[in-house]
C-alpha cells in the first residue's frame, strides 16, 4: 500500500544571524509565488501545515515557513544555556531577510501572525519594496502588556502547560477540538523561556506607532486580518493601526481567535484564499502591463 505522504518537505539551512551561526529548520509545499509564513510567539512553523496541504493555495503559491532560532526544530545558537532569550525587532527582520536571500525567494509575499503580524508592519515600514504583498494576522503596531509574563518561565510552574493554558483562551470556542489541541500541543513543546522572550519583542522592543504612517501601500499592498475572539490583539487594536495606514485592507474574521491558520483551518481559508487571489490577480495585471 502506498504511503500517505504529506506534500510538505522539511529541511535545514545554515544561516549567520546576529553574527552567530544558526541551523534553521523550514518546511515548504507548493509552487508559484513564494509565500513566506511567520509563526506566532512561542510556537513554530507547523502552524501553517493546513495551508501547505490546501491545493487551492499550493497550486499557486510556494508556501514556506521557517522556525525562528530557538523555536521548533531550529537549534538555539551555541552558548544558549548561558543567556536569556530575547527577540528584538532588528534580529527578527534580519532573520526574515537572511532566510529569504538564502533560499533566493524573489519578492515573496510575507504572511505573519501575532509577533509575525507585528514584524510584517516593520517590513512594510522599512523594506516594503522587497515584498509583493504583506499579510498581517492578529497584527497591531503596539500592545500594552496585560499580564505578568514571569509566569511563562519559572522552574516551579511547568512552562509548556502554563503557556498552553494561557493561550487556550485566545482560541475561538467554535474551533474544532482536534485543531485546538494541536495548536496547544505546539505551545506545550516550546523551549523554556522562548515564549517569554518573544513577548519581549512584542511588548517592549517593537512599538511601531510612531512610524506606522510611513507605510505606503502603493509600494506593497498590506492586508490585516484579525479574529473576532482575539482578546490579545483585538479587532479594535488592528483597526487603530489600520486607521493610520492609507490603503490597508482590514478584515475581522468571524469565529476565529489568535491562531486562525491552525485553530480552525477550514474557517480561515474562507478569509485567506480571497486575499491570496487578490495578490495573484495583481501579479497577473502587472505582468500584462
Amino acid at each position, binding site marked *: 500500500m502506498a504511503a500517505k505522504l504529506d506534500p510538505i518537505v522539511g529541511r535545514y539551512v545554515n544561516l549567520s544571524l546576529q553574527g552567530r551561526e544558526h541551523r534553521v529548520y523550514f518546511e515548504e509545499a507548493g509552487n508559484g509565488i513564494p509565500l513566506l509564513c511567520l509563526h506566532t510567539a512561542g510556537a513554530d512553523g507547523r502552524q501553517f501545515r493546513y495551508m501547505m496541504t490546501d491545493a487551492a493555495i499550493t497550486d499557486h503559491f510556494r508556501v514556506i515557513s521557517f522556525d525562528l532560532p530557538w523555536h521548533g526544530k531550529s537549534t538555539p545558537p551555541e552558548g544558549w544555556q548561558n543567556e536569556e532569550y530575547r527577540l528584538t525587532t532588528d534580529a527578527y527582520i534580519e532573520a526574515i531577510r537572511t532566510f529569504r536571500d538564502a533560499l533566493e525567494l524573489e519578492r515573496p509575499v510575507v504572511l505573519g501572525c501575532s509577533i509575525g503580524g507585528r514584524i510584517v508592519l516593520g517590513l512594510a515600514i522599512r523594506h516594503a519594496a522587497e515584498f509583493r504583498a504583506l499579510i498581517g494576522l492578529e497584527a497591531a503596531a503596539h500592545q500594552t502588556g*496585560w*499580564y505578568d509574563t514571569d*509566569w511563562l518561565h519559572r522552574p*516551579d*510552574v*511547568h512552562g509548556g*502547560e*502554563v503557556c*498552553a*493554558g*494561557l493561550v*487556550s*483562551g*485566545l482560541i*475561538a*470556542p*467554535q474551533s474544532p477540538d482536534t485543531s485546538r489541541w494541536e495548536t*496547544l500541543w505546539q505551545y506545550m513543546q516550546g523551549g523554556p523561556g522562548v515564549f517569554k522572550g518573544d513577548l519581549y519583542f512584542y511588548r517592549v522592543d517593537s512599538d511601531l506607532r510612531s512610524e506606522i504612517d510611513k507605510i505606503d501601500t502603493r509600494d506593497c499592498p498590506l492586508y490585516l486580518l484579525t479574529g*473576532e*475572539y482575539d*482578546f490579545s490583539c483585538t479587532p479594535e487594536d488592528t483597526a487603530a493601526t489600520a486607521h493610520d495606514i492609507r490603503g490597508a485592507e482590514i478584515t475581522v474574521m468571524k469565529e476565529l481567535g489568535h491562531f486562525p491558520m491552525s485553530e480552525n483551518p477550514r474557517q480561515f481559508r474562507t478569509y485567506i484564499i480571497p486575499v491570496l487571489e487578490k495578490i495573484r490577480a495583481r501579479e497577473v495585471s502587472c505582468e500584462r502591463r
Partner: protein
Amino acid sequence: MAQQTAMAVGPLEAIGRLAELVNSDRSLVHRGRYVTNDIMIEIGNVSHYVRIDKGQIASLQRGPLLMHSWSFAIRGKEQAWRTFWQALPPPFFHDIFALAKRGEFRIEGDYKSLMTNLLYYKDVIAAPRRLAKETC
C-alpha cells in the same frame, strides 16, 4: 442567536451542579489529579467555596461562610457568569482572562495555585457551559 444558546438554568443553579459536571469528566479529573485546593467562585454577591480533592470536586458550600479560607477567587456579576457559561459565548466572554481583561471578572489571591494547573482550572470553571450545550 442559536449559536450562543443560553443556559436552561441560571448561574446560581449551574454552579450547584459543578461537582457532577467535573467528577463525571474522567479526563478532566485525571488532568487535575495533583490538585487538592480550596477556591472561591463569587456570582454577584453570593460566594461559593469549592473544595477540590485530587481533581474531584469534594464539596461546594454556598456562603456567607465567614472565616473560610481559599487560595484564589474569581468574582463576577451574575450576568457575566451567565454570558461566560453560554454554549458558545461571544467574544471577550469566552475565557476567564478575557473577562478579567475587560474588568468583568476579578481574579484574586494566590496566582501560583491557579497558574500551576491552569488548563485544569479553566475547564473546571467553564464546566457549567455543558449545561447550555445539552439544551442546544
